[in-house]
């Protein structure tokens, strides 16, 4: 269970998040929806302790991670995975090394065991072994996203964060990514947090929805409770970057 209370963050005096309260239940998929520039990415990065907030608490099973040092946070961090908007694959490593980096650094698995796990995760995302020797710049947008998801799943995390997982993908790849998110939830990692501006994605995968507007939570509830009027209001003032309404 993740509890977020009174979270605020500003950059250069401009408030990006204001008094955000959230509860993320175990084994649920939370979708934080809003147009671009509303603080979604900042919020999800604070949840993963990649950005420090100005005020507020983020508690994982009662432990406030904001107060923890990076070193103290490491053990909790190993239970999380993050899929970045632009994938953030390490461009100096090929796909094989991108996937095996965590296992090489943090486990005592043999080279063969690591290779098996790499193969397992690459097959899980629908790719084959030919992709392993490629470098990130050689991958298409959809392939890159799937490798990023494979890197996340290889960690066997308890919580997985997705930052705009469908942004910049064509319809076919969006379908595959949505499928993977659902599959990953049932087979690998039950608790999922997604920030997106994609309304379709929200309806397809969410158990719980939070609407974020100008850094504030304007709605929190089930997707069935989200009305057209709410969405119209949400996107009325924000930048509508290719939102699929």
């Amino acid at each position: 269970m993740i509890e977020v209370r009174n979270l605020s963050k500003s950059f250069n005096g401009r408030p990006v998040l204001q008094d955000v309260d959230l509860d993320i239940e175990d084994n649920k998929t939370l979708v934080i929806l809003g147009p671009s520039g509303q603080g979604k990415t900042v919020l999800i990065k604070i949840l993963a302790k990649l950005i420090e907030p100005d005020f507020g608490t983020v508690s994982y099973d009662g432990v406030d991670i904001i107060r923890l040092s990076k070193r103290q946070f490491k053990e909790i961090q190993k239970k999380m995975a993050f899929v970045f908007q632009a994938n953030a694959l390490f461009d100096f490593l090929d796909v094989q090394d991108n996937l095996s980096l965590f296992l090489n650094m943090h486990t005592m698995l043999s080279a063969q065991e690591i290779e098996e796990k790499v193969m397992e995760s690459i097959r899980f995302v629908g790719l084959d072994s030919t992709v392993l020797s490629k470098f990130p710049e050689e991958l298409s947008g959809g392939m890159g996203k799937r490798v990023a998801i494979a890197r996340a799943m290889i960690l066997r995390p308890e919580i997985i964060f997705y930052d705009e997982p469908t942004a910049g993908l064509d319809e076919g790849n969006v379908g595959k990514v949505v499928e993977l998110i659902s599959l990953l939830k049932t087979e690998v990692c039950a608790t999922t947090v997604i920030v997106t501006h994609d309304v379709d994605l929200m309806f397809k995968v969410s158990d719980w929805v939070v609407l974020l507007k100008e850094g504030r939570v304007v709605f929190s509830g089930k997707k069935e409770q989200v009305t057209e009027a709410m969405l119209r209001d949400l996107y009325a003032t924000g930048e509508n970057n290719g939102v699929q309404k």
Partner: protein
Amino acid sequence: MWKQTIEKTGQRLVNFFEAIYEISQLFLSTLKSLTSIWFYRRQVIDQFYVFLVKTLPIAAVIAVFIGLGSMIQGTYQSSTLVPRTLTMNVIFKSIIFEVTPIVLSLVLAGKLGASLAAEIGSMKISEQLEALETLALDPTGFLVMPRVLAGVFMLPIITIFANFIAIFSVFFVSSVISDWISQPEFFDSLQTNLRIFEFYYGNFIKPAVFGLLISLVGSYFGLKTRGGALGVGKASTNAVVVSAILIVFFDYYLARVLL
């Protein structure tokens, strides 16, 4: 007009000293991350290899011309009243203690410092540094500490290699293809008045300090990169300028303190 100029200069000075302070902070956290050296051993070994492979060819080319240039300058400046062994001794010492370490370091500040800043900077803007953190890896331990160690340990090795080539090129020009000085006199001049500390100073102490500066400053500006490709370009330029200033400053300071 004047007010603006003074304000701008003041701001630049503030920025410069702020950068120096933050570089010192990065140095301290790099020292702290040395406790994880075994954990990051693969990255350390990789960087040692990269530093050597990237720099040896350019070091060799520079060293040949350092030797030839110093030889011509030295013989041109010396009068006929000065014994040739003494002139050669001065050339030899100036190459080892000053010219090779500083020229090589300035060139490598341009090559390695800029590439370090660009490499880490592009990782920063594409969220790869944050991706490292999500894999429970410390960017200082994973990226900075191996590069700093490579700078500190590899630059002396590269400098010794460059000094050897520079001296050999002097020997080749002065004793092999010409008879400006005989071969026994040449080797005598190398050993005359040579103190072992001077050898360490020119080949180990100075290059190690310069290597530390190049890698630390390059990493710092990489980590501070903001914006897109423009930010990466700025980071590379700043890394070269600041490390060059620090190299010449420490060249003076080390000489003042140690000699």
